[in-house]
């Protein structure tokens, strides 16, 4: 009988040591949209598109993703452009970094809600790379730019085998990390219409700390005068981190256009947001806590927007 082999245990601290490397893959930089479509159709699930990499490289390190080919789209024509035209609104290339977006004069002047949302994400250095396009395509329930995109009625413009296709952002998220993009399609740009005159918006994010932790709950509200409603106003409300996808809250929106706006009505709308929220328990917060916070933050965001709207009259 031979003695049991001696095993030298690996110290857990060594296993936990982060390696600066990633699992192997091939990197391809493309300059033509047609080539992207061809590569995507050829490689299917083995291919992954790259913008800032702040989601995919983390997911690859965690073993969630193991693509054989990573396709960098940042140098495709138009991908890093920002254009603003009062009639058509804002056009943001899918590869525009969050810092470039939040520093653009037209975005600061006309879309402060977007600046607010972007600035809640992670840290300045992460936002040098992270893009709004990647944030939407990653389709996390916690995506901080998604609620703002939802209330601003953003259009996602995809490129694919049949050319261009417009997907309203409300139809873009299908589930956790699942989007409406079809095989061979990629997001080329984001179009945000010019909001109605006199609008105001607010994004409030609750994280575990004051910095850029992922949202426990995120609430975006926008409102504007609208003489066709009984209240004289129309509101749009969207939530992050309380359902499998970022969601709008049509119930709250309906309440706020059907009756004259009072403290009580704002409270009712915030309760509607709480009722719509279907959160889960996770390490950042329990479902019960998330529901309660949805109501609180929705109330605060609604109050802020209502305050702005009355100031402007």
């Amino acid at each position, binding site marked *: 009988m031979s003695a049991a082999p001696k095993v030298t245990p690996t110290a857990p601290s060594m296993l936990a040591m982060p390696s600066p490397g990633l699992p192997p893959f091939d*990197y391809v930089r493309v300059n033509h949209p047609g080539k992207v479509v061809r590569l995507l159709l050829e490689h299917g699930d083995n291919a992954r598109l790259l913008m800032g990499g702040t989601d995919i490289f983390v997911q690859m390190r965690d073993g969630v993703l193991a693509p054989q080919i990573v396709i960098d789209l940042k140098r495709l024509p138009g991908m890093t452009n920002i254009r603003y035209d009062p009639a058509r609104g804002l056009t943001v290339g899918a590869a525009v970094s969050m810092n470039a977006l939040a520093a653009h004069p037209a975005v600061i002047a006309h879309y402060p809600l977007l600046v607010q949302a972007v600035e809640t994400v992670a840290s300045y250095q992460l936002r*040098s790379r992270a893009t709004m396009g990647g944030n939407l395509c990653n389709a996390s329930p916690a995506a901080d730019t998604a609620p703002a995109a939802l209330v601003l009625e953003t259009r996602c413009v995809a490129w694919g085998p049949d050319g261009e296709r417009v997907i309203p952002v409300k139809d873009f998220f299908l589930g956790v990390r699942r989007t409406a993009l079809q095989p061979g399609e990629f997001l080329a740009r984001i179009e945000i219409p010019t909001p109605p005159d006199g609008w105001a918006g607010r994004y409030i994010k609750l994280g575990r700390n004051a910095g850029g932790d992922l949202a426990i709950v995120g609430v975006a509200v926008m409102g504007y005068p609208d003489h066709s409603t009984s209240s004289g106003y129309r509101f749009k409300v969207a939530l992050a981190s309380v359902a499998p996808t970022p969601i709008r809250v049509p119930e709250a929106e309906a309440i706020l256009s059907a009756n004259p706006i009072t403290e009580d009505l704002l409270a009712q709308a915030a309760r509607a947001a709480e009722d719509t929220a279907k959160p889960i328990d996770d390490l950042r917060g329990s479902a019960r806590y998330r529901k309660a916070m949805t109501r609180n933050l929705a109330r605060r965001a609604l109050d802020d927007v209502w305050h702005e709207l009355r100031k402007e009259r």
Partner: protein
Amino acid sequence: MAAHTITFTVNGAPETALVHSHTTLLAFLREQLGLTGTKNGCSTGECGACTVLLNGEPVNACLVLAVEIDGAELVTVEGLAHDGQLEPLQQAFIDHTGTQCGFCTPGILIAARALLNRNPDPTEAEIKDALRGNLCRCTGYMRIIDAVKDAARTGG
């Protein structure tokens, strides 16, 4: 596994190198170029120890591929001092004891340098916000913030 030839400048010096697709900028700097001033704390964008300037903007080198820096200008902590002279921000960290174990310091110096480049006279809130992505386990941050304020005051 593809390899790529990249051309770039690091701390002012032009360089050409052969890199694998999956080599991160952090691994490349430390292991291929021997620039070990840039630290690996988490490899996942959380700690900021790997912060370097890429075309003047601070980035987390652990989440950038080496192949992506083709054509770019890089500055690492090794590039802050010139002609044997520390740059004012570095001197301010010494004067205020803004560094203890020092592991976070290269990343914080770079993030702070980037802040002062875009905003030479930041408020305390702006300093805190700019350093939100840099974790320090030693100093308690106050001395770091004092150092950045001082460097800003003296035009650093």
